[in-house]
């Protein structure tokens, strides 16, 4: 009897020590996953991509039925939008050409706006909802690496947390904290842009916290669009992040914080684009290495 009690206690204590060691190991700032973890992730990811297809098919059928009800109304709206876009398209085309010409004049081919897109689709979402992460079916073999931005057609949804050879894990914006910041901006005319950092996510309101660091123009309005600024050296600039919902001064009244509602839907994601920032010609991006790390 005493022998068994002792054995049990012994196992429990050893277990606790191993548990603490393992949690400590995995919470450490790891550059890369171990080979075993990568192998498990790829194997499970491969099986998930098989199971995901029929499931996805069924859910889209239901979604389509749901969509059918709003079609008429949406169609009218879209017609109006298209008429606007036609003239906008012409403008954009001209501006692009002009931009290329000017860049050639300056001999500066690539800007911090340019990126290489990698198409991927979501194969699973973590059932543990503290984590806010999804798995996509592209990995190192396709050129994905950690800390790349991930977007949908609507806007930014997150960044690559870890990459295995054939799958990778994406951390959604709703899981961002002060350790994964995005340098962001609100575009204004004549160099009056507002700069700041997205420094986390407010669970209660579902908004991103945008700390304005530049002592620039401060009359923020609601519904202004916040973009990534590309100043951090990791994400390219010009990715839409969200709309300003509310502006508050911080507790000392020195800086102001805007609450930004993400434009992209974090819950209904099927296909995403991993954004690989192209190296700019002038390599002076070691200023803010801590972005997204």
């Amino acid at each position, binding site marked *: 009897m005493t022998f068994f009690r002792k054995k049990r206690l012994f196992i429990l204590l050893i*277990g606790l020590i*191993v*548990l603490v060691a*393992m*949690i400590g*190991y*995995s*919470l450490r700032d790891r550059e890369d996953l171990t080979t075993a*973890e990568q192998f*498990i*992730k790829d194997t*499970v*990811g491969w*099986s*998930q991509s098989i*199971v*995901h297809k029929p*499931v*996805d098919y069924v*859910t889209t059928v239901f979604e389509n039925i749901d969509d059918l009800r709003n079609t008429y109304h949406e169609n009218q709206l879209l017609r109006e939008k298209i008429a606007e876009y036609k003239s906008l398209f012409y403008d954009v085309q001209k501006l692009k050409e002009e931009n290329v010409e000017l860049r050639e004049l300056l001999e500066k081919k690539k800007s911090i706006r340019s990126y290489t897109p990698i198409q991927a689709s979501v*194969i*699973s*979402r*973590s*059932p*543990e*909802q*503290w*984590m806010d*992460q999804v*798995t996509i079916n592209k990995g190192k073999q396709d050129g994905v690496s950690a800390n790349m931005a991930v977007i949908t057609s609507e806007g930014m949804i997150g960044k690559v*947390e*870890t990459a295995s050879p054939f799958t990778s*894990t994406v951390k959604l914006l709703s899981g961002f904290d002060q350790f994964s910041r995005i340098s962001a901006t609100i575009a204004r005319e004549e160099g009056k842009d507002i700069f700041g950092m997205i420094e986390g996510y407010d669970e209660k309101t579902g908004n991103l916290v945008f700390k304005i660091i530049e002592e620039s123009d401060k009359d923020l309005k609601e519904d202004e669009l916040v973009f990534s600024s590309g100043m951090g050296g990791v994400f390219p600039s010009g990715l839409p992040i969200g709309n300003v919902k509310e502006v508050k001064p911080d507790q000392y009244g020195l800086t102001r914080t805007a609450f930004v509602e993400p434009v992209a*839907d*974090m*819950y*209904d994601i099927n296909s995403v684009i991993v954004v690989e920032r192209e190296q700019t010609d002038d390599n002076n991006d070691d200023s803010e290495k801590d972005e997204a790390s």
Partner: protein
Amino acid sequence: MNRILIPFLLFLLLILEGIALDLLPVSLVSGELQLVPHWVLLCLILKMMFFDREDANGSVIYGFVFGFLIDVVYTGVLGVYMFSYALVIYIMHGLIKVLHANFYAATLIGVIGVVLADVFINLMYSVAGISEVVWNDYLIYRMLPTALANGLFLVFLYPLLVSRFVKWKEQRGSGGSAYF
């Protein structure tokens, strides 16, 4: 045969857990409620009640292995699910000796197991600084919905699995391994 089938079944549930939230309507998932599927745990509890011998600890080892897989694949924080599942199955193993193996007992044990495991997981996450939630909020927004959803899933899983487990147990007869 069932030596391969049971790990395969658990692996299938592990994969389906990753798709579970896509199946639910978006309005339910995007709100404050957190529904966490613990299907692997439920399946292990059923296996323990209807397939294992009374003195066998195989389910604890399965809980250890599949909990580890969940940690690697879905959370990236190793050890949390692994130890919670193994510990809960060990505790439940002691508890089922006092109950008859029937539907009501299975539901009761399953829900208690899920609640215990989820509390352990949340406790470890809050110690590690991953979840920063008040325990009152946790109770309303995560524990109750999770317990309810998993209880429902257990009711759905019970008729599918239990008859098979009982059949396999009879097939195994007196021979075979005492552990798996």
